[in-house]
């Protein structure tokens, strides 16, 4: 469980986070959304103790981040950074992925087994002996993801996982993230990709100017046009379509393509039967 209690964080005299209170239960799926500079990345850096609160506290499974090292917290909370180029350094993808396992002192045999498993899962098996610098952007991003997932952390935090991914990769990523979540891991994604959030259906925490603006299910939050715009986001396209058809009796809270499709279908069919 991740508990954030009355968290304030200031840097260089500027208040970046203002009275943040969140409780994230084990196995929850959360999307933290908000404009650039809202404090999203600053907030998640508190989850593994990279940043310590100026005021208030952050508890990971009951342990305050003030009292634990980043190394011990990162075994529980896997934080995947936005830009893979900020962490790739090894000669081969295998070594890169094994790095955290070695830091945690696992025996070599366990490391080999875990690394091979995670490379297989993320479609990277054939690159095991390739230099990570030779890979494409999307592949490098997957290597970075693998390098965190390999040690099997209970909570996973992904900073902007969809940036630089093509459509097909995004689809795969979505499936993978949802799968991790159904396996019981806590998944927290930081993103401003509203369409991606609609497809993943997490609980949404909306951050603006360092404070929590709103918190709720994805359809509740993202169909509230006013709220979404206050967080400098654009509502999802299906939501926009449905809300522009509101006068015809469509529900603006419909965000899912298939739900929208069946609502429209039903209306068309009823119109057809009326004219007949």
């Amino acid at each position, binding site marked *: 469980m991740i508990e954030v209690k009355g968290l304030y964080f200031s840097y260089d005299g500027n208040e970046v986070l203002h009275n943040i209170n969140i409780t994230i239960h084990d196995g929850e799926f959360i999307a933290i959304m908000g404009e650039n500079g809202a404090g999203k990345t600053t907030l998640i850096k508190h989850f593994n103790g990279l940043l310590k609160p100026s005021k208030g506290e952050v508890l990971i499974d009951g342990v305050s981040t003030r009292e634990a090292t980043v190394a011990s917290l990162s075994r529980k909370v896997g934080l995947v950074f936005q830009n893979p180029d900020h*962490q*790739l*350094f090894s000669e081969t993808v295998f070594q890169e992925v094994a790095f955290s396992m070695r830091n945690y002192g696992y025996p070599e045999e366990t490391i080999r087994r875990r690394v091979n498993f995670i490379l297989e899962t993320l479609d990277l098996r054939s690159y095991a002996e390739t230099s990570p610098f030779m890979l494409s952007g999307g592949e490098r991003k997957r290597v970075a993801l693998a390098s965190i997932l390999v040690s099997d952390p209970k909570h996973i935090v992904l900073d902007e996982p969809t940036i630089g991914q093509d459509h097909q990769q995004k689809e795969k990523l979505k499936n993978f993230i949802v799968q991790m979540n159904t396996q019981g891991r806590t998944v927290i994604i930081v993103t401003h990709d509203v369409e991606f959030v609609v497809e993943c259906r997490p609980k949404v925490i909306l951050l603006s100017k360092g404070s929590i603006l709103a918190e709720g299910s994805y359809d509740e939050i993202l169909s509230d046009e006013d709220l979404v715009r206050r967080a400098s986001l654009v509502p999802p396209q299906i939501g926009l379509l449905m809300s522009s058809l509101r006068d015809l009796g469509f529900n603006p809270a419909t965000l899912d393509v298939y739900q929208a499709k069946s609502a429209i279908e039903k209306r068309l069919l009823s119109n057809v039967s009326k004219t007949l």
Partner: protein
Amino acid sequence: MSLKLFEGFRFTGKRTPIHRMDPRPKLLIASSIFLLSILFTNIIVLLILLIAQLPLIYLAKSLRRWSNSLRGGAVLATLIFIMNFLTGSTLVFSLSMTLRFLVLISAFSLFFLTTSPDDLGLVLERLHLPYTLSFTFTTAVRLVPTVALEAQTIVDAQRSRGLELDRGNIIERLRRHIPILIPLIVSAIRRSTELAEALESRAFGSCENRESLITLSMKWTDYFVAIATIIILLVGIFVRLWIPLPSLDESIRLPSIWV
């Protein structure tokens, strides 16, 4: 700690008399302090050189950043002291060498804190440095904060993978910095390639005689500061050459068996 050092050299656009000054007298001040600190090994003179900068730094409202740059340089300063003392120099001489280093850091910290990279570029151009060279230099200065920020992100990313930088003996600690250095160097190379391409696509270096939009102009206060600096520099040189100065006890040193 090392990032603090960068902070102390980063231009901050404050509105103070020092920031408003023409960059040339400022460069003259920094270079004069540099010259004087190289000329003298006398600890009292070096101490005066350090303290004399305080009013300027206070006027520039940059005391906190300036002290950051000194703190950032503290590790190197300690190393200088230890190396000097261990290799048989006297205590006072070792202290002077350390102080000389701090004077240098302080002088250039003051210069870079109060001079924008643009101004610096104009000065270098006035000194008839080829534009490609002065551009390279100002770009390097301008990129320092970006690189420092990037270094911090890389440190954070690797610590999130269980890297502990401050564990083990000194060799082990250096080895633990490899995962920081490689991404930093790779991204610096990548950035410079991108920068070169962007520059070329904007016709960098296409004409010989480049003119600049802003021209530097000296006010009477700038002339006054420049002349005062030159006089102080000349007096310093005169004293160094012809006037013997009192010095502190020069006898304390490590016993020769250590050396």
